[in-house]
């Protein structure tokens, strides 16, 4: 593998952002097409890598498309990129949603130059988190993401946007402050910043010098804030609700996945002992997140806030799947991250469309829209049903794997009971999703919505693409699970799975 595909994927959006910064802000078309090209090429390359990915069993745990150069000699830090079965689909997901985010933003006319520059920079930093194999690089990418988010929410957002953006920044920085301390301790105890090296052999040293549990928690807090795990979730409803549509898509679609990814990649893989010790506690927090998130969702009337709270509940499943610590449950958690990314991405895109075309975000004022905007109604319903886990959609495949895996997990005690409690969450989910769809689209049509525009060609395009992916993964989940398994199986083996 001579060509540095990953670097190209990683830096093309950033390069696009720099080019956009030099285009005159009056030339909106050029800005948007530049953004289009600089997100389309990474997507094509990521699809190519996904197809070229070695799926044979011997590739389990093997890092592919690796690039490694010495970066900062005094710190022994490397510019080290690579993907394994766990990160490959997430890189693909990021480029996919990054590309769609540009399309979704096509109607942004306020300060377009800065908007698209920040959006592209955001994509680079998220790809960087998933593709970095060096702790310093990982952390830098993790932190860079905050700056574009801050600007995107506070300039192009709505509602209490400034409050939400600074809240988001402070929560994230608070979490990463602990993470930085954790990374520094890890660096000191092992003398290495290389993620695979530490995972493969540094652990003995960690336990010798510093209690591994302490480092586990330092790292975990950073990821828990991002996931978000109850009780660190309160930034999420504000940020999601007030962010512009495309940013909500990125935020719910891939940004919060960084938390789950980090937990699997660093916490679980490097600290199997503490992970197992604290699994019960974390699973209980996951259950609270699932049920509490769903219960609060039931009471929302703002369409975006509703989807935001549902994310808390869905991320609870991810946490459950991760800390059930079984091969199947971990695979399910990984699949749920991907699936939630596209489903919630679609839901937010649809919500944005409703808000844009109908100019209200209050569910109580909507109703009977199925007549006036049939396409939106159908797609919204599909996304909703996928979100509640209807068979043949990706949501079903992912949640089924999580429940199956955690019910059968022998690593943690009492998993059967926990799983049964978690399943209650599905019922609540069905409740709020169906209520939301019914409230917005069904019932008697209202006259004031006559003449409301349905989705136009561009919007139909990205809607159908997302629906197609949801269905594809739902009907044939192996397209992803075959890849995820390669990354998960070495981790599951740590727990005898």
């Amino acid at each position, binding site marked *: 593998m001579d060509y540095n595909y990953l670097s190209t994927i990683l830096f093309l959006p950033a390069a696009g952002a720099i080019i956009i910064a030099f285009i005159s802000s009056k030339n909106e078309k050029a800005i948007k097409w530049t953004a289009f090209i600089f997100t389309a090429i990474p997507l094509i390359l990521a699809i190519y890598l996904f197809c070229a990915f070695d799926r044979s069993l011997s590739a389990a745990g093997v890092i592919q498309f690796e690039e490694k150069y010495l*970066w*900062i*000699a*005094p*710190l022994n830090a490397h510019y080290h990129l690579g993907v394994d079965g766990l990160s490959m689909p997430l890189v693909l997901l990021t480029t996919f949603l990054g590309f769609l985010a540009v399309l979704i933003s096509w109607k942004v006319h306020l300060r377009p130059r800065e908007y698209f520059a920040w959006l592209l920079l955001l994509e680079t930093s998220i790809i960087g988190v998933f593709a970095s194999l060096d702790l*310093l690089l990982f*952390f*830098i990418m993790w*932190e*860079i993401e*905050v*700056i574009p988010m*801050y*600007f995107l929410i*506070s*300039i192009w957002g709505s509602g209490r946007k*400034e409050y939400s953006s*600074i809240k988001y*920044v*402070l929560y994230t*920085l*608070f979490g990463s*402050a*602990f993470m*930085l*301390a954790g990374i*520094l*301790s890890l*660096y*000191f105890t092992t003398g290495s910043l290389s993620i695979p090296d530490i995972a493969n052999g540094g652990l003995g040293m960690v336990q010798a010098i510093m209690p591994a549990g302490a480092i586990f928690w330092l790292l975990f807090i950073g990821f828990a804030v991002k996931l978000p795990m109850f009780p660190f979730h309160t930034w999420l409803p504000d940020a999601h609700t007030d962010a512009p549509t495309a940013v909500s898509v990125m935020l719910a679609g891939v940004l919060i996945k960084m938390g789950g990814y980090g937990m699997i990649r660093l916490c679980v893989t490097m600290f199997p002992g503490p992970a197992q010790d604290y699994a019960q506690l974390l699973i209980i927090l996951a259950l609270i997140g699932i049920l509490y998130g769903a219960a609060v969702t039931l009471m929302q009337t703002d369409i975006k806030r509703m989807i935001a709270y549902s994310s808390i509940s869905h991320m609870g499943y991810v946490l459950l799947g991760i800390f059930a610590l079984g091969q199947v449950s971990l695979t399910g958690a990984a699949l749920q991250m991907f699936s939630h990314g596209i489903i919630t991405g679609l839901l937010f895109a649809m919500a944005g469309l409703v808000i844009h075309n109908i100019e209200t975000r209050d569910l109580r004022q909507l109703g009977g829209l199925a007549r006036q905007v049939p396409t939106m109604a159908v797609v919204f319903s599909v996304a909703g049903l996928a979100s509640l886990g209807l068979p043949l959609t990706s949501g079903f495949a992912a949640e089924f794997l999580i429940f199956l895996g955690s019910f059968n997990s022998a690593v943690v005690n009492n998993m059967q009971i926990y799983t049964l409690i978690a399943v209650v969450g599905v019922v609540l989910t069905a409740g709020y999703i169906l209520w939301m769809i019914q409230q917005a689209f069904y019932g008697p049509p209202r006259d004031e919505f006559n003449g409301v525009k349905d989705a136009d060609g561009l919007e139909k395009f990205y809607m159908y693409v997302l629906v197609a992916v949801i269905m594809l993964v739902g009907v044939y989940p192996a397209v992803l699970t075959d890849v995820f398994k390669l990354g998960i199986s070495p981790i599951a083996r740590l727990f005898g799975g």
Partner: protein
Amino acid sequence: MNLHLFVPEITMAVVAVLVILLDLFVRQKAVLRGVSIIGLLVVIGYSLAMWKGMDCELPAFIFNNMLAVDNFSLFFKILLAGIAILVILASADYASKFTRFQGEYYALILLSALGMMLMAAASDLISLYISLELASISLYVLVSFLKDRKSTEASLKYLLLGAIASAVLLYGMALVFGVTGQTQLSAIAGSIQAMGLGGLVDSPALLIGIVLMIAGLGFKIAAVPFQMWVPDVYEGAPTPITAYLSVASKAAGFAFILRIFYSSFGMPDWLSQNWGMIFAVLAVFSMFIGNIVAIPQTNIKRMLGYSSIAQAGYLMVGLATLGFASAGAIAGQSTILFFLASYTVTNLGAFIVVIAISNKINSDNIDDYAGMGKRTPLLALALTLCLISLIGMPPASGFMAKFYLFSAAVQQDLIWLVVIAVINSVISAYYYLRVVKVMWFGESAVEDKIPSTAAPRIALILTCLGVLLLGIIPGLLMRLAEEAGKIFGG
């Protein structure tokens, strides 16, 4: 005697005098700037050549062991000359505010830079003190240069408190001399080791002397509780001088502390761990007080003043690391040097923007920065970058500096201090980002552009490039800092 080892200092003094003389018959004051900058570039060039080992053996001592010429002092010569160049460039527009005494203004900057260079090189208590006074007295005058009420008040405050701090420092030095009978730093170390641990514990005079020296030096680096002069002086002084104070005075102060505490008080471990603990406690207070009091500030110069107190706190984490490291180990010195370099470019960058903007709008109120994102996007972008760097977020140099500094601290089991420091970085994000918010999201009543001339623009480009380069490829400077820090290794 090897006078050629003293060429950088001689150059500084000659250029300073030359500038004053030229001022008498040169109409075009830009010439003075040019001459000063050329002189400083010569200093940098010559120091770099000495670093590479050009016809001299390093480390060397000159003037009866009064001054050391080693990589450490050369590092600071280059850093301080660089600061002086940037400050002079940044003063280009501002200096036209003083119709008279422009020559003296540049000459005083050069002289105080010379004093600070000597501080970093001094290896004897006497030369340390003299160079400190040379630097301070020049600064007292510079602070008063605006001659309005605030500037005069600031200068008087700085003079009085500075004089007290110098007296405390001198008292400490006298006590140390009284106990050890030496003024030479290495001889003091020898004498302390000869006392043994028992003799040391039984000698309160020495310990009080050391504590008094910390107090006197704490003033120079603006550490809590010796920080009370900072906000007023920062607000009242001409803004380029505020910038100069905030970085150069701090750099020289830390050079001074590093040299004296490592050379003289580095052994035995009992002693170094005790002053390490003092610095750790001072660091905690400086960070918390600096950051928390910065939050309600409405004047950007005052805010940056409190922020510089907090930054001194982070730097003292490095000093604590040094104290806790076992004797002879290389820990912390190079990280402090790197942090200082990064802080220098970052803070100077921020101040250059403040100078440019306040020149136009005649105000230092943060609220008046509203709409700068539209009025002057490049300046606003530069200030945003510098503030992000001050928070310590990548890709700016501030992140690398903190990462490097804290990684050394973690190695000495100071993880509690690191956790406090990173939490403080989060607190600081709040007030730094407030400025960003005002600039980009605020609406301004007037829409006219902010003009800027070439000289400050060059300075700004240099600092912003520095912030980005040190953040993305810090390896080169880290190696230099390690070479400079090595003189303390053996």
